[in-house]
């Protein structure tokens, strides 16, 4: 089942690359594969035994035995949700790319499907080397997707993105080699906990760059601005969660002592990123800038929840990962739709789009309201849990988080009013129509998921860890 989830998109990608399909059928095939993934995931969700928890749907095969490396995949409760986020966001992104009609459809769709498989691999790999392989494999399609289909500044953006992330991943590779060989296994379910600060920092470097965590976010604004909207949606919505997942599954679970040593500095960086990202989002001149920097802030918040290292923090972090993934995917897609109509994302040239465009206004405001964590929204539940969790590490952290929530309200409202309200901007003409049914079909499912989670956040918070005790799971290293 898990293997099928990984292989189906890869196989579909190969098919699309090899078969001489025309543009429409290539896109349709890709969309079909993406929807089949969603179907598979629903199967997984239904059949996963949350009462039992732990690693399920595990599959293991020897890869090379003399270094004890194997192909070992499986899912935990929280990875079920992250896989779900991946398949839903990817399906929306592929559908949007199909509808917009990207150049060289076959290459594009193949890469998107390849990316899907790689990300699911990251969330399900139970072997360190396999995890690394998927983590790196994720980079290959992203590099091309941004570099070929990106905006005018794409060459610089890809280079920066690549150099940053690869610097991190290679440090992680060194850590993996030292850690795995010293423990004599690379299997994550068997490998023991380690007290080595250096190995821990190697992992943290990789995840902190990928998330990104302040001050390692240099690649973020360019990459998010220059890529096409659906790729930006995946980058900020899903790929950044791979880093948060890595923190949880490896850095925190396997290195309890170094986590104690470095908790304060990491929490401080996360808090700085949270405030700094929120301020930048408030000052950003364009839609993508607002979403990009809010993504930096949100990743800081999620990191705070994780490094609180207690039940509340973990629950909140996992919920917020899914929330933020859906929110930022929806917002980037909406940004793309607005930009398509106005040919600009600059807030000063936009405005007044609500008039005569009720669907756009409704969807954007709903997403925005969830993003700013209004009470009763799923983001509110997630942020509340994170703040409650991190409170136990010191009340100061919660104050910072609470301030950031106020700032979030400010920047989201600024975004909404700059796009929808005020006077009609110079870039907005009457020929800019309301959202088309196809566009609604892409965004509405994401918003619907968010609304469902708002109604029942416990779906995730009570179904992520064994007996709903994240701390116990983590302290045992997910064995």
């Amino acid at each position, binding site marked *: 089942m898990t293997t099928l989830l990984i292989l189906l998109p890869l196989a579909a990608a190969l098919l699309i*690359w090899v078969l001489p399909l025309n543009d429409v059928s290539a896109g349709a095939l890709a969309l079909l594969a993406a929807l089949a993934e969603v179907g598979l995931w629903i199967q997984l969700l239904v059949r996963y035994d949350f009462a039992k928890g732990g690693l399920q749907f595990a599959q293991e095969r020897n*890869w*090379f035995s003399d270094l004890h490396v194997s192909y070992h995949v499986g899912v935990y409760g929280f990875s079920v949700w992250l896989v779900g986020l991946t398949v839903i966001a990817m399906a929306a992104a592929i559908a949007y790319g199909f509808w917009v009609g990207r150049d060289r459809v076959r290459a594009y769709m193949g890469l998107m499907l390849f990316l899907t498989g790689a990300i699911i691999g990251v969330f399900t790999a139970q072997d360190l080397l396999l995890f690394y392989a998927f983590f*790196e494999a994720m980079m*290959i399609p992203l590099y091309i997707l941004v570099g070929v289909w990106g905006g005018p500044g794409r060459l610089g953006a890809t280079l920066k993105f*690549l150099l940053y992330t690869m610097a991190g991943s290679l440090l992680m590779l060194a850590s993996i*080699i*030292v850690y795995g060989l010293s423990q004599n296994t690379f299997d994550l379910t068997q490998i023991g906990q380690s007290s080595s600060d250096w190995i821990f920092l190697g992992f943290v470097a990789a995840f902190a760059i990928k998330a990104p965590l302040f001050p390692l976010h240099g690649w973020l604004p360019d990459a998010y601005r220059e890529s096409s909207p659906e790729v930006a949606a995946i980058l900020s919505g899903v790929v950044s969660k791979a880093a948060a997942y890595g923190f949880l599954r490896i850095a925190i679970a396997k290195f309890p002592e170094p986590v104690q040593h470095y908790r304060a500095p990491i929490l401080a960086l996360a808090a700085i990123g949270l405030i700094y990202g929120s301020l930048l989002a408030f000052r950003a001149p364009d839609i993508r800038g607002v979403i990009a920097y809010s993504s930096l802030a949100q990743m800081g918040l999620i990191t705070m929840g994780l490094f609180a290292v207690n039940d509340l923090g973990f629950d909140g972090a996992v919920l917020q990962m899914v929330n933020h993934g859906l929110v930022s995917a929806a917002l980037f897609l909406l940004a793309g739709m607005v930009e398509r109509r106005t040919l600009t994302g600059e807030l000063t040239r936009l405005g007044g789009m609500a008039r005569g465009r009720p669907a756009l206004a409704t969807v954007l405001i709903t997403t925005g309201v969830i993003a700013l964590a209004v009470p009763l929204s799923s983001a509110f539940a997630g942020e509340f849990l994170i703040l409650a969790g991190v409170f136990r590490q010191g009340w100061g952290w919660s104050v910072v988080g609470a301030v950031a929530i106020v700032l979030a309200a400010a920047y989201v409202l600024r975004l909404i009013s700059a796009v929808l309200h005020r006077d009609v901007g110079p870039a907005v003409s009457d020929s800019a129509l309301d959202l088309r049914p196809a566009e609604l079909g892409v965004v509405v499912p994401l918003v619907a998921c968010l609304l469902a989670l708002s109604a029942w956040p416990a779906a995730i918070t009570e179904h992520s860890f064994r007996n709903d005790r994240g701390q116990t799971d983590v302290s045992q290293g997910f064995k």
Partner: protein
Amino acid sequence: MIHGPHIDWFALAGVNSLLAASALALLSAVLVPGPLRRPVAASLCALGYATAIGFTIALYVKSPHGHGVVVDAFRRDRLAQFAGIILAGSGLLATAISYRERMREHHGEYYALLAAAGGGMLFFVGANNLMTLFLGLEWFSISLYILCAIDRDRLGGLEAALKYLVIGGFGSAVLLFGSALVYGATGQLNFDAISAAGQAHDSLLVFGLAMIIAGLAFKASAAPFHMWTPDVYEGAPTPVTAFMAAATKAAALVVMLRVLVTAFPSQAHLWTVALAAIAVCSLVIGNLAALVQKGVKRMLAYSSISQAGFMLIAVSTDSNLGARALLYYLIPYAAMSLGSFAVVAARERELGVPVTFENMAGFGWERPLLGVSMWAFMLGFAGFPLTGGFVGKFYIFAAAYDRGWTWLVIVGVAATAVSLYYYLGVIRAMYFRPAEELQLAPVAGGSPPRELLLQTAVTAALVVTVGSFFAVQPLIDAARHATEFLFL
């Protein structure tokens, strides 16, 4: 009446089939009429290589316990056969890549020399004493010197050949002098006899060892013995470059492993450090110089220097794991080298000018198969997953760590990070910039030549590059069987 020694002809079958192919190809240059000469000579060469592959595989299967043959001058063991399969496979692919090379004359001689070079290498990796070692080295080197110069119309071809001849000759002389010193110190030529007779602190022996390492490092183009590499790789006909990058390096590294481990075990504390130093040198020089290259062939030349550095790390660990890592890595390495130079050759034939990053623009979209393959080869060199390069690098780093050289792991990882810039530069050039940005009319005019053989060779290289990522266990098992006798 002189009684010759008993000769195990089967052990020499691979070498001999290539020699026979070489002789027949040479004859075809005289006997076969002009238009048929190229297909006949090329098929003879390919047939020779195919037979050699068959024989080396059979020998690998049938020689679980290595032993010396021909008065112990030559080893029939799995190490030689494992290397032989890689070498003969490289030769076969190089033959396919060569076929459409724009060359007006000397087709018969070209393929004769290509087969002869392969035969020499097959002999070289089986050498069991210093005489046969030198003989094998000169045998394939001389063939390669001529191959570099054979296309007289090629700009820089003669210069490259001369440079290769002079510096290669110097390298051979150093190796020979080192062998003489070792013989002087021990009175022995056979590797195991040297090991038995040598004293750990004999300065004559150590000096000879240093010169042997230097001589072999010339052939492996490891820094600081690499000066010839960029010019020769650039000036030689591209298929020859492909063959040199894949096969010469593989042969030199395997022989280095064999000589050092079997003949100089008591000096291991010296040569392991020396090799680690050479490896670091190669990584630094190869990577930094590759960063600033404009020509793709020169970039690949410098990259091959840094790849030699990686593989020397494996040899320098003086361990089972390191030996296995080397043999494993040689498989994807040879495929990636051949494949990437083959893609360069295809572009070169299309444009009729040396290939630079500039004029690679848009190539990936025009020729999807070659573009995707080049993509895989570059990612493989950079150690990305889904290619054998990833597993190979992992094994090499694991071996270095296992020896306690964590610093060497760090150097290797840093070198990999630097290398990404230029490897991905190729992808950037091929895909990210549209061809319309530059006005380059293909020199031949019309559509690009259909090169079925070259495309088949590239596809084969692609299959090996990607396949070795998945089939790690069988390949590693084979490598283990080939090397376990080294460290008993």
